[in-house]
């Protein structure tokens, strides 16, 4: 097992910069998820680590070896691909064995033994004699993971491995991957565009946007303390509401002024900057109907435009002045389009971002003990 250390990693294709000077560390035994929208550079990063793409600049270490110029097979990695990359004319076992002779010095007997062990771990013994066309999507992906397992690499690289599976299977495979990681404790870098997958799988999650890392944190911290507006809107579904506001300070107190409401902010001293105009962020589940809010919390009015029953809750689209916000209300609330609602916010869960998208305020201070994250603030 080894850690992966990336410093200043950059990839340019002609005049397009796909990955722009990123730093990232995947610790020994850690499951790190690289998440971002399509085209953000996450796959390119993974492929550079695998050795499938040349590195334009920067350093890549696996363990204490600098591997920039090593052939893929010398890097002690195994990769699982989105489309499984199984050879259609070979059985499961042949797929797992093919290439083993090239990647290592094992004897045939040793390879057979490893295939047997991997198959046992993954519970795919009965699939070994079948060809990919006789396997379901989930079974193919298990064989593909088995192919990675038999190599006993220092590092596992997974490129959207669940994206070709249907929703139900994806949930099941997610759980199996988690369990597998717990058993093997292998250093794993996992790329996905699906924030739910990122949240459920990652020990830590790195959010990548436009070739740059926005934030690296454990899932809950990512959700509670988004470092940027991009992270705030990308992580969580439905997305966080973002409203343009003015910041007005009155002595030591600071409040946000929107055309429809004014909201004093608690813990005003945690502001790291204080521009005049900013963006106020609040998640749909942190807004509630005023009649359900205890005490003298300030409230504001909004007009319902659309309601979406999600089953376990009711998602309400409202107009607040010229802006739209989403509110999560209890399921079966009798609310209809056209209603005017009195809304209150959870004062513990307020966020403010500056014009560049950087977070300058979270209403509840971020605990120090709970985060062991590497420095995450993007470069200004």
């Amino acid at each position: 097992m080894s850690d992966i250390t990336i410093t200043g990693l950059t990839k340019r294709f002609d005049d397009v910069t796909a990955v722009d000077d990123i730093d990232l560390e995947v610790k020994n035994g850690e499951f790190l998820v690289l998440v971002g929208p399509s085209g953000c550079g996450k796959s390119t990063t993974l492929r550079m680590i695998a050795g499938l793409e040349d590195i334009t600049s920067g350093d890549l270490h696996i363990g204490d070896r600098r591997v920039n110029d090593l052939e893929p097979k010398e890097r002690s990695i195994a990769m699982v691909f989105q489309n499984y990359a199984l050879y259609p004319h070979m059985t499961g076992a042949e797929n797992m064995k093919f290439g083993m002779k090239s990647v290592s010095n094992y004897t045939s007997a040793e390879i057979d033994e490893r295939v047997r062990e991997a198959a046992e771990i993954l519970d795919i013994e009965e699939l070994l004699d079948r060809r990919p066309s006789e396997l379901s999507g989930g079974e193919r992906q298990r064989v593909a993971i088995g192919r990675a397992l038999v190599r006993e690499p220092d590092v596992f690289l997974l490129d959207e491995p669940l994206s070709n599976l249907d929703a139900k299977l994806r949930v099941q495979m997610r759980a199996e991957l988690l369990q597998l990681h717990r058993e093997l404790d292998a250093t794993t870098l996992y790329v996905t565009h699906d924030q739910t997958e990122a949240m459920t799988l990652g020990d830590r999650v790195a959010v990548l946007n436009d070739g740059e890392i926005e934030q690296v944190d454990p899932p809950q911290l990512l959700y509670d303390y988004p470092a940027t507006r991009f992270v705030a809107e990308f992580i969580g579904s439905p997305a966080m509401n973002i409203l343009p506001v003015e910041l007005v300070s009155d002595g030591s107190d600071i409040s946000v002024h929107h055309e429809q409401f004014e909201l004093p902010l608690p813990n005003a001293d945690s502001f790291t900057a204080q521009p005049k105009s900013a963006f106020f962020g609040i998640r749909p589940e942190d807004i509630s109907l005023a009649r359900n809010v205890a005490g003298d919390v300030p409230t504001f009015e909004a007009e319902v435009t659309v309601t979406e029953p999600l089953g376990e809750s009711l998602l309400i689209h409202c107009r607040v002045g010229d802006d739209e916000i989403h509110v999560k209300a209890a399921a079966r609330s009798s609310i209809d389009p056209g209603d005017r609602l009195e809304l209150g916010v959870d004062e513990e869960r307020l966020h403010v971002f500056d014009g560049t998208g950087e977070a300058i305020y979270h209403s509840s201070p971020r605990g120090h003990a709970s985060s062991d994250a590497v420095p995450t603030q993007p470069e200004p």
Partner: protein
Amino acid sequence: MSEFTEPYESKWQAFLLLLPTFIVLIAFLYYPGLETFRLSLSQTILLGSQKVFVGLENYVTLATSSEYHSSFAISVAFAAVVVIGTLAVSLFVSYLLFEVDVGSSTYLIAAIWPYALPTAVAASVLLFLLHPSLGIITYYLEQLTGTSLDWFTNGPQAFAVVAVVAIWKQLGYNIIFMVAALNNIPETLTESAEIDGVGHLKMLYRVYIPLMSPTLVFLVVMDTIYAFFSTFPLVDLMTSGGPSGATNLLIFKLYRDAFEFSSLGLASAESVVLFAIVAILMYVQLRLSESYAHYGG
């Protein structure tokens, strides 16, 4: 099919649309095709003015003619050489085209142009360049190997020369299909092998060729048909079947029997044999492509 995907009902319109194709196919393909069978059972006498039914006599003649036997054997050997030669060279070039990083589309055109090369042009050009006494290529080959080449009189040499020209002309067609087949192989298969450090040759034999096999089967059949049916201009322009019958391919013998010796019945029997060869090849292609269907997964 739902009613929307076949929106038109009129059987008369359908019939009218199919009619021109049917007229041509029946008049110029099916009718003469069937006539070939009938003619093969007859002989023409009195300078072609009368036909008499002779049963299987023409076939018996073919079966007992040593000239026909040798022409048949030469044609089979010729097809084998052309198919193997074409596939080997095309595979080499196609693999390079698949591996090359820049300029692949320019290289592709520069490699497939023989698809447009008329057989008669190929024959004329190489007849001269390989000419035993005037050919520049022959001259340098002789210098290089220290041998004396004279395929105007040496049978095996003539056979080889005609085969080389046949292969040259057929490269473009094969490369087109092979490159397409290689490019259809998912890139992640290549990358997965690259991570394991699998060598290029092993990749070619163990992965690419098996995955290309439906295309290769198709090309074996098409190249065989080509070698039997489309090589007439080569023989006609380069060797006239000689020396001493060394390049007397079935198609050339058929032409001579029919249009030089006016043995129409015998020539028709030879046509029937050619028909049997196409039919067998097409059947093989159909069967094999079905059995490779699982490679699609």
